[in-house]
């Protein structure tokens, strides 16, 4: 009898969780020493004993999922994703960093380099320069492919510092796009045949309809690559190809991208008078405000919970029991910082598409 009684909680409607368990399910608790209830309860039957269905229906997701854009500029976006699990939010983040392709310089053909910077260091620096070219217009260059106008972008750099002059700072604007491909010729074993260049473009990239409107170039023209002393010079050609951040971080389309769960700050008891003033001062992010409640009485209110960094300053020392710090488990504040190849909002949709493609590939292999 006692066993059924414990499961049969009369005061709780069927299909709902008791309040404290619902809190544990939907929130992460930040205690003074460590966060607790951090793990998501995934198993669909976890709450079967109280008649609560923990499974996920696609229709419910459709109904509850929301996106709110908070900030959108040329290269950055900040938005809230509400009603999604961390596993999916994290999948999007991981794909953004490592699997959305961009173009980056992969091969550098150095004709002459008398600067103090060694060839390999110079090449590495060139590789990291963000290139303003839509990677969706290009193909991956695989090992046996010949570089052509659909998979390679060629840049040329020729700088010379005059003798008896000041030092010269070489910036990224010195890299000039060669829409017709490489101008350097390969050494051919047979002197009678016509020497070939390092790329075989069948037409100028500038004449391709997708590219002609937006010429390809460096995203930033003021990145310092190296410095030349009087009399030194650099002459090289740089070949950019498509790749992903998995292989090398230079192909990552984002400076970084991250999410945090929405902080929730709750006052469990009313904090009045002097304590209220103290609490406002304690918080480095100005989460609390003091409100007049009349009769010369003041009380603390939570006015900017979103700014909370969960530094836990407010729950250390006295007054700890007055405040509950939590995070909302299915509310993600997502930030994407693009390096410039594509706008941040396009990067995100590309990332979601890549996850879809992964699923499709596995489904076709399972069938």
């Amino acid at each position: 009898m006692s066993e059924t009684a414990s499961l049969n909680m009369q005061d709780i409607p069927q299909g709902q969780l008791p309040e404290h368990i619902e809190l544990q399910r939907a929130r992460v608790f930040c205690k003074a020493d460590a966060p607790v209830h951090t793990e998501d309860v995934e198993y669909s039957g976890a709450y079967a004993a109280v008649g609560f269905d923990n499974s996920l229906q696609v229709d419910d997701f459709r109904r509850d999922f929301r996106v709110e854009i908070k900030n959108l500029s040329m290269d950055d976006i900040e938005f809230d994703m509400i009603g999604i699990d961390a596993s999916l939010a994290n999948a999007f983040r991981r794909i953004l960093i490592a699997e959305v392709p961009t173009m980056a310089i992969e091969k550098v053909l150095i004709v002459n380099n008398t600067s103090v910077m060694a060839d390999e260091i110079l090449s590495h620096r060139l590789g990291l320069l963000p290139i303003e070219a839509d990677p969706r217009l290009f193909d991956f260059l695989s090992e046996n492919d010949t570089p052509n106008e659909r998979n390679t972008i060629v840049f040329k750099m020729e700088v010379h510092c005059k003798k008896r002059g000041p030092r010269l700072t070489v910036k990224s604007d010195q890299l000039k796009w060669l829409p017709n491909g490489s101008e350097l010729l390969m050494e051919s074993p047979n002197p009678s045949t016509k020497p070939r260049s390092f790329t075989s473009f069948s037409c100028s990239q500038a004449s391709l309809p997708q590219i002609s409107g937006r010429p390809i170039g460096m995203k930033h023209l003021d990145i310092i690559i190296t410095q030349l002393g009087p009399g030194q010079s650099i002459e090289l050609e740089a070949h950019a190809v498509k790749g992903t951040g998995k292989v090398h971080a230079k192909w990552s389309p984002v400076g970084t991208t991250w999410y945090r769960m929405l902080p929730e700050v709750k006052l469990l008891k009313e904090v009045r008078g002097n304590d209220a003033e103290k609490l406002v001062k304690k918080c480095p992010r100005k989460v609390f405000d003091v409100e007049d409640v009349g009769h010369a009485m003041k009380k603390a209110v939570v006015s900017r919970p979103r700014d909370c960094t969960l530094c836990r300053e407010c729950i250390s020392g006295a007054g700890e029991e007055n405040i509950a710090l939590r995070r909302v488990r299915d509310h993600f504040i997502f930030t994407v910082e693009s390096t410039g190849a594509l706008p941040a909002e396009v990067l995100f949709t590309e990332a979601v598409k890549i996850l879809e493609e992964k699923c499709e590939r596995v489904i076709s292999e399972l069938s």
Partner: protein
Amino acid sequence: MEHGSLTDSKNSTFCLMDEDHTLANSVRFLLNKDPRVEFCGYSIPHPSENKVNIRVQTTGDSAKDVLKESFQDLIFLCQHVRSTFEKSVADFKSTQSRQEMNGA
């Protein structure tokens, strides 16, 4: 992909090549949320090998079908995320440009 086929179809281990936590963790989440699944987990046997093993044990249905449906659900979720996101961005852009016009 390899398929650890056993005599009973309701318990299987699947090996996905060239995948990592990105896909495995997402699909594990969906599998765990599926009432037909009794147990589900994944592991990456060695960090330098590009593969993940996904274990699915169901209460009766074929594990392969349940896994396939989970991937299908994941596609639906992604499509919904994408359309919701694109709509929000379009709305945000239009209100932003309207505000700029009013401000100017």
